[in-house]
Every structure is written in structure tokens, then in C-alpha cells.
């Protein structure tokens, strides 16, 4: 009897040990919230353009994309907006007047939301030139160096501290073509790449952010930066653009691969610190998605009464003819 009891106990205990230790849990019962995003962009000191998007949050357990709100009332500095279904955006019914700051008001059902931002000063691109071709090892491996085109861009940072920029480059006017830039040398630095484009403000510890991250591959067509290390000075940035992004992949004309481009387009966006922090964290969160060891990234917003972000940008654009 004693042996039977011991055997039965051991069987029960050992059987329990093998039971599953992973259980599904429900973490949120929150109701959906209103989300408002918008921008005002002044390109090359012309008439401001603006767009506003109104949507709602979506439960994580639901597939698909968040629902748009199409019947909201939207106005910006007194100008009314109407919903454009083709773009899923609210766009101004008339032109927007120039102003130093902008405030938007949104009413969706019983919810009222608002946000405001100051339009930063225009910072023009002083020069942008192709300065040569270098044979570099591709980030994607291989032993054979390929052609990389060196581009130098410069601008004058205003004297006051705390200027924030986003520099966008692409080989299509729409600036939506995924591209890649290589800064500096041929080496690939996993530490920096792991942090993507959003952290250059703090990444840099010396005088020049790009000289000290000289071996950085930017897996994106834009970089974010502050003037922390070049406040009030003329800043010259050097990029290396792979030959492939200029000549494209004509052998695959029907795919989404880059096609030959006549120009390289550049845009220097001057923005507020809040815009910089917001966009930096958006990019960081995207980069870290699926990484269980990454610290959580909370994306800050600035819309009162809703989630989302509204920001103003002064943009300087230029284009360079591809030297092919």
C-alpha cells in the first residue's frame, strides 16, 4: 500500500510538471479612442500645405488597419477642411494663410480635440553636389566593391540652440521610394544600425555626428538630427548612395525595385523638438517591433483630447541630376 501511494504520488507530481506553462491572457479592455494626425508644411517659403487624418484606435486582437473617421469637423486657423476619400485625409477647402503658428480643432461626434505648433524658420539647403564615385563594399556583403556616389549637402544652422531636422533623399519626386544611404567608410557598425535613424542626437558624442558615425548604414531614405553638435555653424553632410539606387534595376521593370532615375531629390525639414521626438520614437518602435529585449517605446503625442500628433515643418528642397 505504501509503495502504491508513493508511486501514485510520483506519477501525479511528474505529470503536473509536464503540463503547459504558456497561457493566453487578455491584457486590455480599453474602448477605442479618437486619433488625430496632421501637418502643415511650408515648402521653399511658398504657400503652406496641410492635411489632417482622423481615425480611431484598433484593438490588438483585431486584424486589419484602424478605421477612418470620415464625418469629423476639422478646421485649421479658421480654414475648414473636407474629407478626401481618395487620400483618406482631410484637406483644406481653400488655401491656408501664412502664419507663424497653427492650431487645428477637430470635432468627431461628441469628442473635441485640438493641437497647435509653431512653424519653424526656413533653413535653406546651401549646396548639394555630386563630388565623386567611390568603390565600397556593400553592406549586404560580398567581397567586390561597387560604385557609391558621394553627395555633399550643406546648410547653415541658425544661431539659437535646439534646431531639429529631418533630411530626406530619394530617387523619385514623390520621395517615397525606399532607398539607402551609406555614411562615411565601408565598415558596417551593427551597434548603430540596430538603433536605426532615430537616435543620432544622443548617439553622437563628439563634434560631428556623421564623422563619428562614419560607418553607418542608414536603412532608410531619411535621417533625423539635432544641431546639438553644430549649433550656429554651416553643416556639411556626406552621403554615399549606391549605384543601384541610381541606375535602378531595369532588368526588373515590372517590379517595385528602383528604376533608373534622372534626379536625386533632397528635402531638409526644419521641425520642432516635439516633432523630432515624436518621429524619432515612431521610427524606434517600428525598428524594435518583435524584439523581446527592446525597451518599450512610447510615442509621445501632442493632441489634446485624442491620440496623435500635429506638427509644422519648413522644408527646403533641391534636386541633383544623376551623373550617369
Amino acid at each position, binding site marked *: 500500500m505504501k509503495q502504491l501511494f508513493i508511486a501514485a504520488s510520483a506519477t501525479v507530481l511528474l505529470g503536473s510538471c509536464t503540463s503547459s506553462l504558456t*497561457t493566453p491572457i*487578455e491584457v486590455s479592455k480599453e474602448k477605442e479612442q479618437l486619433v488625430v494626425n496632421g501637418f502643415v508644411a511650408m515648402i521653399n517659403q511658398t504657400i503652406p500645405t496641410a492635411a489632417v*487624418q482622423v481615425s480611431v484606435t484598433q484593438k490588438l486582437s483585431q486584424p*486589419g488597419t484602424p478605421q477612418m473617421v470620415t464625418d469629423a469637423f476639422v478646421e485649421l486657423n479658421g480654414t475648414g477642411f473636407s474629407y478626401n476619400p481618395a487620400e483618406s485625409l482631410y484637406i483644406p477647402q481653400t488655401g491656408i494663410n501664412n502664419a507663424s503658428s497653427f492650431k487645428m480643432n477637430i470635432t468627431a461626434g461628441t469628442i473635441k480635440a485640438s493641437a497647435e505648433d509653431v512653424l519653424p524658420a526656413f533653413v535653406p539647403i546651401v549646396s548639394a553636389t555630386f563630388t565623386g564615385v567611390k568603390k565600397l563594399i556593400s553592406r549586404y556583403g560580398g567581397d567586390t566593391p561597387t560604385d557609391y556616389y558621394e553627395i555633399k549637402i550643406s546648410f547653415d544652422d541658425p544661431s539659437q540652440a535646439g534646431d531639429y531636422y529631418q533630411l530626406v533623399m530619394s530617387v523619385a519626386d514623390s520621395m517615397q521610394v525606399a532607398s539607402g544611404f551609406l555614411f562615411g567608410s565601408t565598415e558596417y557598425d551593427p551597434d548603430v544600425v*540596430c538603433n536605426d535613424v532615430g537616435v543620432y542626437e544622443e548617439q553622437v558624442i563628439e563634434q560631428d555626428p556623421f564623422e563619428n558615425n562614419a560607418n553607418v548604414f542608414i536603412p532608410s531614405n531619411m535621417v533625423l538630427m539635432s544641431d546639438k553638435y553644430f549649433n550656429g555653424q554651416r553643416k556639411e553632410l556626406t552621403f554615399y548612395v549606391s549605384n543601384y539606387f541610381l541606375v535602378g534595376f531595369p532588368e526588373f521593370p515590372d517590379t517595385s525595385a528602383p528604376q533608373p532615375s534622372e534626379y536625386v531629390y533632397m528635402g531638409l525639414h526644419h521641425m520642432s523638438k516635439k516633432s523630432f521626438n*515624436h518621429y524619432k520614437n515612431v521610427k524606434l518602435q*517600428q525598428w524594435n517591433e518583435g524584439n523581446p529585449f527592446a525597451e518599450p517605446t512610447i510615442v509621445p503625442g501632442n493632441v489634446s483630447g485624442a491620440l496623435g500628433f500635429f506638427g509644422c*515643418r519648413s522644408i527646403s528642397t533641391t534636386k541633383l541630376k544623376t551623373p550617369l
Partner: protein
Amino acid sequence: MHSITKLPSFARFLIISIPFFTFSYQALAQNITLSGFVSDAASGEKLIGAIVAVPSLNIGTATNTYGFYSLTVPSAEAKQLEVNYVGYEPKVVTIDPVAGGKLNIELTATLQLKEVSLSSSKKTPIHERSQMSSAEIPIAQAKALPTFLGEVDILKVIQLLPGVQAGNEGSSNLIVRGGSPDQNLILLDGVPVYNAYHLFGFFSVFNADALSNMEVIKGGFPARYGGRLSSVIDIRMKEGNKQKIHAEGGIGLLASRLMIEGPIIKDKISFMVSGRRTYYDILARPIIKSQTDGNGKLILNFYDLNAKLNYKISDNDHVYISAYMGSDKFGFKDKSNGETFSSGIKWGNITTVARWNHLFNNKLFGNLTAYHSRYQFDLYSEYAGSNDNFKMNYISGIYDWAGKYDLDYIPNNRHYIKAGAGGTYHTYTPGAMQIKGNAIETTDSTDKLRSVETHVYIEDDFLVTGKLKVNVGLHANSFSIRSKNYFSLQPRLAARYILFERTSLKASYAKMNQYIHLLSNSGVGLPTDLWVPATDKIRPMQADQVALGIAHNTRQDIEISIEGFYKKMNNVLEYKNGASFALTGTKWENNVTQGKGEAYGGEFFVHKKSGNTNGMISYTLSWSNRLFPDLNEGKVFPYKYDRRHDFKIALVHKFSKSIEVSGEWIFGTGNAMSIPTAKYYSSVTPNNNGDWAYSYYYPSRNNYRMASYHRLDIGAKFTKVKAKSTREWVLGVYNLYNRKNPFFIYTEENNGATTFKQVSLLGIIPSISYNFKF
């Protein structure tokens, strides 16, 4: 950093008052001073904290960490000296009023431990000590509790105290009064141990068989301690039996251990050597081989070795040399088709220390210590083929060389003065990558960071009146790294006031500084966590803690204490938003941010030490929050180990001399963590043309509470004492009712929908082990 000019009155008070009080009592005439060592009669082991008293005069003292005592008594009135120590027969010694002087006392252990205590078995009643927020845990008593996989783990015993909690399920790491795991100063024979955990935190590195004593201090830190914010865990190794060879050991499911101690020259030189090794990988080898076509090999083991040599040069001089070495290996090796691939991680500590005790006279005791401590981890990956080979190592570590001198001066029975000074030379290697192969050989070394840390302190345990006793002190330290020098002046004060016969009111204040940080993404004590120093960019952590409490000792020898505490911390460290667990190397300073923390709460503790049924109950109600300008949009958020309720009960019942059962039940509020609650479009920018940024919405940092943690462990011990040996079977069940406690939560994507899953690590786990002594 604190300027000395901020506390002129306090410093002046300290400097002026101590000599004054010292002088005033030295002036008393016709006194004799008795001094000596209290030790175990059978082994010669010094007894720490034994009470030496003259009951007729109501005066007494306790032995220090080397078993030394000094007691000054009026020669005319002193008749008998009584010596007490838990687990030993009390001893009464007649005082020779003429001879006085040295009096070494040996106590005999009771044949059967009549009182089995779980913790906090203070030799001085709780209400009489000026020290608060502390517990002294005899190792033998820690062994009475249920064990995890048959391994006695003293750090898990500490987790039963109020105000102390485990970080994660099964983990041995300690969260003390809202602090982080790196804020605990864990000392082994006075030497800091940087990574005190085996097997990713499931076991501590301390082999209980090799230890003699352990004290935990959570607040009201005496001035002799410094360098960490939240706790001091002072662990002492056995000295080695001076009389005869003695051995004890055990065989468990996870590991086996053996300790041997004995005299080299009787009463003169003794030794103690102990070792422990796990064999999980050996047991698992057949399973792994079967799943890898016989080519795979799991490497998962740890070992630790302790050794100590004790040399009594004369009655006035003792030399101790002790060492600890422990290492873990976790990896996998695959050998097939002439190719070998291995990958894994190795980590471990080595500490060596030499100490020289010198008794200058019967009132002045000195101890010189020199030590070296090393912690290193090595993440490796190796490939060897017929034509090619490759080896990568990522190495990180911390190396200390240190020396210090401590003095105990007991001018009279009202003062116990401790003073000392020391310095440590630290070398930090936050990360160094080495790659070797046929075609490549590179070393990407992080610059080694070297620093010098010095300290000086003085404290006085001062019996002001019969009711009021204070421990007042000052700890000053400095830290130099690169071109930056930090200096800190840290006042300490602890006081008790006897309210009633067995009840006292206690209060304490302590300022602490910490010049070392642990960078951790996980908080589970992974060896890849990096120890990094304060630098010119990263400021040292600093804390102020106040505590107030009532201590009561009942006539039935039940200790009851209620304490409230408030701790304010500055310059605590966290990874920045979105920083990823990575071998950050030189970039670590740029990936962290500093902020403030605060922790406050109340602790309730009942401890029954005597009788066949004994145990303890502890409850803590606490809050621990953080505030970082760069995190959570600058708003306050709960610390990940913020635990509102923490309740523990542990009981031991002795049915007979040979059968003892024990059980413990633990309940704690779940850890806080950041979890997204929704997804949304987060940005519309001028050039995204419909490719809108899509983000996860976190309402705030650490917005989600994991499920509460609770579990019940039970154990039974069957002891058989023979003429020359003792054997013991220990049965235990961990997590008896198979509670699926949360270890971590992960997300799973399925057709665009995100679901959360909770992973529990430890279900019900039975264990059996066999222990022996001879």
C-alpha cells in the same frame, strides 16, 4: 555629490562628541576590562554576535564578526559573566576581579537544536538593538526551510524577510525596499560579489555548507558600509574546524556538494574546502544526443569552490586567507561531417581575500584586509571546419584590487566605536569583441575604464541613557574616473528608545552613494547584464532613507516589528526609450538615461523563534516609482518591481528528533510591465503619401500588472543520528498547487491580430536530496 560644507554642524558634533564621551567614561576608576573571543568548543569556529553580559549589573555586549568582545565592568561588583548564543548551552564564567584581562570562552552546542529559527535570530533582543531594518540569519536555520530542487539557497531565505522580494519567478535576485537588483552590496568575507547567481538567477552562488553567518541590512546602515543604496548582505565563510576533521555534503537532483574542514595543526591552523557541481548537462546528454542524431551536446553546468585557511599566530594575531571561485557554462556544441560548431556563454566570479586580525589591547581590535574580486562573462561562438575556422568572443567584466583597515574600539560599555579606511582600484571592461579566423583577426575593445574608490568612516554605538541608544556615524567616500572626481559625505544615524520593558521605538536615517550601475534589459539576473561605473557623463546614484518603527519582544520570545520607510533615490539608471538589448560596448553611455526614484511603505514582521512549531509572518505594503525626464513623457511611472502587497508565511514543525516538516506560502502583487493596448496611425507627414506610420499605443510606461504571484512550498526532513555520523533525507515540493505564475509575456501575431501569451517557468517540482555529516 555632497559638499562637506553642507553639514558642518553634524560633522562638528561627531568630531567633538565622540572623544568627549569616550574620555568621560574612561575616567571612571576601579574598572576592569574583559576581552577575548567566543568560539564553538568542538570546532573552534568563532561565534558572531554572541552575547557576553554581567546580568547582575545589567551590562553586556556582543561579539563582532571575528568573535571578539570587550566588556568593562566595575571590579568590585563584577562576579559572573554569562555568555549566550543561539543553539549553544549558556555558559557562566566567574570573573577574577584581580586578573581581569583576556578571557576566551568556548560554548558547547546543544545536542539537538531546541529552537529552530527561520531567520532574524538576533542574539541581542530586537528591542535592545540600535540597528533597525536588519536581520541576522544563522545558516543552520536557513537550512530548515523548504528548498528548490533540494538546493539550500540563502538568498531565497532572505526573500522571506519583509521589504525584500524576488525580481522574477524562481529568481534569487533581491529587490530591497523598491531598489534595483544592483543596489545590494553582497559581501563574502568582506569582498563584493558582483554576480551572485547561478543558472540565470535561479540559484545563488553561495554553498550553504561553507558558510557560517549572514546578516541583512535594509536601512539605517552603519557607517562602516557604503557603496550601495538599498541593502548590505554580509556573508561569512566558516573558518575551518580547529579540533578534528569534519565533513558534510549532499546529493541532490541538480547538484552534489562536499565540504571538508579540519585542523592542519590543532588549535593553530585549520582549513575549510567546499565544492559544488551541478550535473544537469550530464543527465540531459542522452536526450540531447537522441534529438541531434548523436552529434549535439548541451553544456549547462555550474560549480563553485570555497576555501579558507585560518592561522592563529598568537592570542593577539589571526590570519585568514579565503577564496571563492564559481563559474557557469551554458551552450551547445554540434559536431558533424568534420565540422564543429559551438556557441554559448560562460560567466563567473573569483574572489580572494587575506585578513589579519590584531588585538592591540583589550579595548582595541584591528583588522587589515586585502582582496581581489573578478567577475567576467564571455559570450562565445566557434566554428571549425576542414578548411575554415572562426572564433568570436565578447568579453565583459569588472576587476577589483582593494585594501582596507578597520578598527573596533570599545572604551567602555557605553561606546562601541568602529573606524576604518580603504581604497579599491576598479577596472571595468564593459565589452570587448575578439574575432579570429582564417581570413580575419580583429579586436574591437571597449576602452577599459579604471577608477579609484576610497572611503573612510567612523561610527559609535552609543548607549546615551538606559533607554536611549544611538548608532551615529559618518561615511565619506570618493570616486575618480577619467578626469572626474566625485566626493560624498554620508551621515548615518540609528536610534532606539525603550518605551516599555520589551518595546522600543526605533528611527534611522542613512545617506548612501553608489558608483556602479548594472545595465540590464531583463532584470532576471542574466550574466550579460553589464556592470558599468559612474563616469563624467553618468553620475553616481544617491539615496536618502528614513525609517521609523516599533520593535517588541514578547515573553514567549516572539519578535514583532512594524516599520515604515521612505527612500528617495537620485540618478538611477534606465535604458532609453527603445534601447535594445544589445552588446552595447562603447555606446552604453549613450543608451542610458538617469532619473529619480522613490520608494515608501510599511513592513510588519512576526517571528517566533522557539518551540517545536516556529516560523515567521511578514507583510509589506509599499510603493516604488520612477521619474525620468526622457521616459514616459516626463511623468511618474511605477518601477517594474513595484509591489503593493507582499505577504509571506513560513513555518517549521518538529514532530520528533528525527522528523521535521516545513512549509512556506508567498503572495505578491504582480510586476509592472509595458504592454500596448491598441494600434493606431501615429503620424501623417508631408512625404509619406498614404504610407502612414502605424504604432502601438502604450498608455504609459509599466502600464500593465502581471498576475499576482503566489505559491506554496513544502518540505520534510528525516534525520538519523548515528554514533559518528548523521544522515538526512530531504523531500520537498516546490509550487505544490502548480500555480502558473507569470515569468514573462510575449505577443503572437496571427493574420494581423495580436494576442498575448504568458509564460510560466516553474510548475510543481518535487525534489529529493540526501545529506550527510561525519
